[in-house]
């Protein structure tokens, strides 16, 4: 006697439809858009943003918000460069040690973030924003406003070496996305995110340790921010205190555009993927079709509004019979 709106399904697939429509639109205006090389360019641009978006998706699924990504990304990126250089300066000479190290640092930053939020009972947006400030500040102290470079052709192979037309870093991001999808659907942790986001009271009343789930969520997000930092360094060969700039806007916009509800419990990492692709296809496509830059800013603003409209609509149709 119950059922779903077909409209609900339509809205669930709307982001993917939007993505396909955008690709068709841009291709129609400039056929150059539809080329493997260009898709590779979009993928390179999207890879770090995707990792940030995946991280924040877990947080948003829990109905919280994490605004620490810019600071966390800058901090881990700079630290990664220092560590990489310190351990030999090339991947072969021991620079690889920097990778697990920086994932741990990311986890630590995230965990601290979660602990501050949970233990001190500070709203997540405030705790994470403050944590982001602290991380950025620490980055400025580390670099003194300067730039740290990595000059290792093997590590930079993530950007320069291609497989089937796509740089290796795209495959790294793809693999991490699969890991995230596995965590989301196949682990108790992923299930817990949905439970906490769908009904925190209930999760508590079912005997879940909600606080621990939250801390775990922020820790996991921190790890993904660190992955994003490594990819960003692979992409640019350098890190500085502004390396993480703009990632807050891009990741949260992407997540919402992709169909993850900001109140929690709805969506997942695949939505984040579609959202990140939409944002990056728009960024790339607007230049490729030759839109004037002032129109580009307007388009991006429009995108945010559409995203909010779509997500509000989604709430309205989740009618319980």
């Amino acid at each position, binding site marked *: *006697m*119950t*059922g*779903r*709106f*077909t409209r609900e399904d339509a809205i669930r697939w709307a982001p993917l439809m939007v993505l396909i429509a955008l690709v068709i639109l841009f291709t129609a205006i400039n056929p150059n858009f539809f080329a493997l090389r260009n898709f590779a360019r979009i993928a390179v641009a999207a890879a770090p943003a995707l990792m940030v978006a995946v991280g924040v998706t877990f947080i948003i699924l829990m109905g919280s918000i994490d605004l620490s990504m810019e600071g966390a990304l800058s901090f881990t990126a700079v630290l990664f460069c220092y560590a990489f250089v310190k351990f030999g300066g090339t991947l072969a000479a021991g620079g690889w040690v920097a990778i697990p190290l920086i994932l741990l640092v990311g986890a630590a930053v995230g965990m601290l973030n979660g602990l501050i939020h949970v233990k001190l009972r500070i709203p997540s947006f405030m705790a994470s924003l403050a944590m982001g400030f602290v991380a950025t500040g620490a980055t400025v102290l580390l670099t003194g406003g300067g730039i740290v470079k990595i000059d290792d052709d093997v590590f930079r192979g993530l950007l320069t070496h291609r497989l089937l037309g796509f740089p290796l870093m795209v495959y790294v991001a793809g693999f991490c996305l699969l890991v995230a999808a596995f965590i989301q*659907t*196949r*682990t*108790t*942790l992923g*299930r*817990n995110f*949905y*439970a906490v986001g*769908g*009904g925190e*009271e*209930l*999760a*508590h*009343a*079912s*005997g*879940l*340790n909600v606080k621990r789930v939250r801390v775990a969520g922020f820790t996991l997000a921190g790890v993904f921010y660190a992955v994003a930092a490594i990819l960003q360094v692979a992409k640019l060969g350098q890190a500085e205190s502004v390396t993480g700039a703009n990632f807050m806007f891009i990741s949260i916009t992407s997540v919402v555009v992709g169909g993850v509800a900001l109140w929690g*419990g*709805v969506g997942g990492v695949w939505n984040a993927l579609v959202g990140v692709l939409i944002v990056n296809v728009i960024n790339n496509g607007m230049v490729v079709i030759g839109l004037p830059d002032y129109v580009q800013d307007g388009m991006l603003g429009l995108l945010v509004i559409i995203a909010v409209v779509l997500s509000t609509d989604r709430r309205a149709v*989740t*009618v*319980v*019979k």
Partner: protein
Amino acid sequence: MYQLAKVDKKFPGVHALKAVDFQIGRGEIVGLVGENGAGKSTLMKVLYGAYQPDGGQITLDGRSVRFANPRAAMEQGIGMVFQEQSLIANLTVMENIFLGYEQQFVRFGVINWKAMAAAASAQLAKVKLTIDPATVTSALSFAQRQLVELAKVLTLEERVPGNLVILLDEPTSVLAEDEVNLLFKLVRELTSRASFIFVSHRMDEVMELSDRIYVMKDGAVVDVVTRGEKSVEQIQHKMVGRNVDKEYYREHRQQPFDASKEVVKLESVSLPGRINDISLTLHRGEVLCLVGTEGSGREAILRTIYGMRTPLAGKVTIKGQQITQFTPRNAVAQGVGYVPRERKVEGIVAGMNVYENMTLSQMGRHSSAGVLRIAGERALARDWISKLSIKASSELADCGNLSGGNQQKVVLAKWRSGGSDIMLLDHPTRGLDIGAKEDVYDMIRDMSEAGVGIVLVADTLEEAIGLSHSIIVIKDGAIQKRFDCTPGAKPSLFDLLHYMI
């Protein structure tokens, strides 16, 4: 004058309305009854414009109409009084009444509050409510809010030519008896102004108020009964499709419990607030009912056993182990299950599917190193769906879309499938219809037979008497009296009331 002919509504996997014919005449009061999931809610939503039918015809005074949304229906004189009240608590009564229609009081961009207050008073007079229209809504009693809601719908009278049709969805579910009588008197008087469609789970009320009763089952109207034509039992028979058991509370299935095995023991427990010196013992297979008025402390005791509250003094022992750390996590680990009153808040996660809800409290059992064995979870869910005959298209169905009774079954299955042998039930039948209630009663007896100790806070006194092995009456946070409820020697309503008030 308002008529539905052969109206059909389908959702994926569910045929919610099957060629339903329905009509209501001027000044008539029509009742609508049926089990949960019989299609009442869907029919209501079609009636007030929230759903658009897939087939059939709707006519109003002979004209064919199609409502795009509830507002369109309102503009044709069809209004809805919601069960979950739609008044905004921090606005005043008059603001609520004219919410969205303030324009008539605006002069030069400013609201003329005096004019609005006068108009609001006129509306309130229709429902015989003498309160200041400038009162903030949250200051009103629940019954008063119900009347304000009705007054709000009655503003249609001024805005819409022709007759009104007003839908009342469970208007009495939280009203006291005298309040119910008042409401009914009012509704009868208002038939000069409007027709009413009345939906309730309380069969006696529907019988008392309605001129005609539509009986629904499985998405179809199975009978239309004129007042006095049939007895309550006959109608219930139609609704359920079977005889309502004389042994409604399954007393014949009540077995003596094993008094030698204590599972929960409270000794002189005191809680913050007014709850003092509570001592009680629950045994294997016992149904222990806590009886008292709202706020007497029944829920607080349940929540203490479940670890959601920490006592100031006294001892709580579960299965021989004294509890030192009061968290739900520990309680669950001890085999305690909790079915809360607020199903939507603490019972099920809407948006998660049936199997995810069922294994929520026992994910450790279905995972290794944090990785879930989803096939196992789904098999378990399928098993319980058939065991409890849960009406869901599959274990993948969204729990938020199930009817109340089926949601409750999912909650019970969640604990039972996890092997909980101490169950705390807070109003487990609230908001359920007869069929679903009987299912819950059967489940309680099943659990009792399986040796589960049950602490119950029942929806009605009859339910408490019928179901329990023992009753503890609580008043103002203190235990007044303990009754044994052996079949044949059960206390009467009066016995209990005597100690309650």
